[in-house]
């Protein structure tokens, strides 16, 4: 057998150094995109229950939403009665709120993105930015771990330079069997864990399998969490552009 020449070894090493991490990185990128797409689809329409749970109280809110990719969303609160009819309209990185009781429309300024969205552990910023998990971060598989008996890729997401994101890094677990997300950890710029999203109750809904309960645990405020329960959902349906307009935002009743 011919021994490999030193030049051959060097070129193989260079190939490995230059291309293998890129291929691995691209793989992580594809995994994240696939997981996000399975969760969100190109369009979706659904009904949800949001429960804000703290050691002192629990609040429940039922809402309907319409999404077109990550660019457009209309969320209408159906209960409780006090909030019913309030709406949130998101177009790319702009958000408007319509308050039913005072019949007013408010444009949300960028600084208000930090504000809690309807008293939950989500912020207005989540509505705008969460969509950029695939585009605004670089992705790298850092481990393989088991979460609730499911083998998962653990992927580290690091913000791209100048990306408009608020997190220092994310850890994102994707189940290897069905490419669905299992867990996401959000770290601030100092590496402190701020919150954790846990996906559970996987079942068939809207023609695909997906987690029907999403729980955002506020790690900075122990005991506080927000649960999203999907009651029904349809994916990749035709949604008129008119749903995402001032006309619908300010229409008195349902869109």
């Amino acid at each position, binding site marked *: 057998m011919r021994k490999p020449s030193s030049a051959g070894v060097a070129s193989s090493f260079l190939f490995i150094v230059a291309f293998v991490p890129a291929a691995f990185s691209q793989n992580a990128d594809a995994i994240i995109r696939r997981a996000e797409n399975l969760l969100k689809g190109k369009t979706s329409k659904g009904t949800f229950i949001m429960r804000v749970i703290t050691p002192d109280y629990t609040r429940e809110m039922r809402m309907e939403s319409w999404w077109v990719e990550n660019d457009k969303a209309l969320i209408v609160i159906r209960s409780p009665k006090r909030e019913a009819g309030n709406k949130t309209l998101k177009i790319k990185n702009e958000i408007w709120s319509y308050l039913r009781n*005072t*019949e007013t429309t408010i444009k949300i300024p960028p600084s208000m993105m930090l504000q809690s969205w309807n008293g939950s552990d989500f912020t207005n910023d989540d509505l705008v930015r969460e969509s950029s998990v695939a585009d605004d971060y670089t992705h790298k598989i850092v481990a393989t771990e088991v979460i609730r008996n499911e083998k998962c890729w653990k992927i580290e997401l690091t913000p791209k330079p100048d990306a408009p994101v608020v997190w220092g890094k994310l850890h994102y677990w994707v189940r290897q069997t069905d490419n669905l997300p299992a867990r996401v950890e959000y770290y601030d710029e100092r590496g402190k864990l701020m919150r954790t999203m846990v996906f559970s109750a996987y079942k068939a809904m809207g023609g695909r399998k997906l987690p029907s309960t999403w729980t955002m645990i506020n790690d900075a405020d122990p005991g506080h969490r927000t649960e999203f329960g999907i009651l029904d959902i349809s994916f990749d349906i035709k949604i008129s552009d*008119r749903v995402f307009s001032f006309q619908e935002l300010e229409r008195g*009743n349902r869109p």
Partner: protein
Amino acid sequence: MKLPLTLAVKRASRLLLLSAFWIRGADAQDWLSFSGYVMDVPVYQRVNGTLARFFGSDRDQWLNVARVRLRPTASLWGNARVALEYEITSLYHSAPLFFDIQTTRNKRQVVDLTWNPVNQPKYSVIHFVDRLHLDQSLGFADIVIGRQRIAWGTGRIWNPTDLFNPINPTSFAKIEKDGVDAVLTKLTFGDFTDLTLVYNPQEGWNTSNAGFRFRTNYAQYDISIVGGHFDKRVVMGGDFAGNLFQAGLRGEGILSADRHNLSSSFAKYILGIDYQFTSKLYGLMEYHFNGEGAKDKLAYDLLRLARGETINVGRDYLALQASYLVHPLVNTMLSYMRNLDDKSQFVGLLVSCSVTDELAVALGGQLYVGDDFTEFWYYPGAVYVKADFYF
């Protein structure tokens, strides 16, 4: 026989409601939605001594405002619906009041749909229809006919472009603006571009009001142009809402002119900025120029203020507001307003607590400071509790 306008509209309103119930009576669960709230506001207020002596009234007054608001909505054929907001308000006051707290018919309401079955010296009950409108969506346009809220303007404290139903920012017993009797057509030219045409009839054609608002979104700014003929005057103006770096920036203004008396022309405008400092602390600042008002306190038009025809009598104002979320269910709001000409001031503090999903309780206080006969000198200081329950 020619029916007076008010009578004709009253009969049409009844017919509209009866039609809605008759046409869709079979599947009531799907087409009828119902909501409303009950609110009670006990108030202690202290009137300034000079005014109390002048009117022969007690300085210390106890009030209670109780409101029940019912909001049924019925879907009709196609994309049509009829919406009603009916309210019963009772008011107890231990001494005569200088300013109306109850809703009274405003100048944009052509039909009197307010009834006053109880009218005792210290206790009164009124009930009234504050919204009753038929909405028809045609896709490219929405048509709304009847008593409705017309929401023009972007300001948080003042809305000079609200030519229909402005609300006094110091009011604490009301949360919604009065309804306006109008025919409104909103033509849509895109997701964020529309043209609203409004006709607000009055008893005479010459006194009727008509206006337009063209709104669009450009470079992340919501921009509007408004104009029309209101109160026999020509009005032109506009508003915007956008961002200045991380802050929200808003402005709106109008020019109002009487073609027969140009010297009476005036401008009104506001410029406001708000900022969310932390996830819990929010601040807002708004400047208001009120060209209709007077710089000299002796020239204030107090009668119009007492009748609710204007909400401020001075010329220049500054308002500051800060809110802090003490707990996810407890919010505090501090408000400050200053008449920059006569230096009178208003300070308000409100602590509100969400007791359950549907019940909220708030404790508020209002303090008015000013020299004799300045604007806020006329207002009584007040402490109140506000409880509201939605159903």
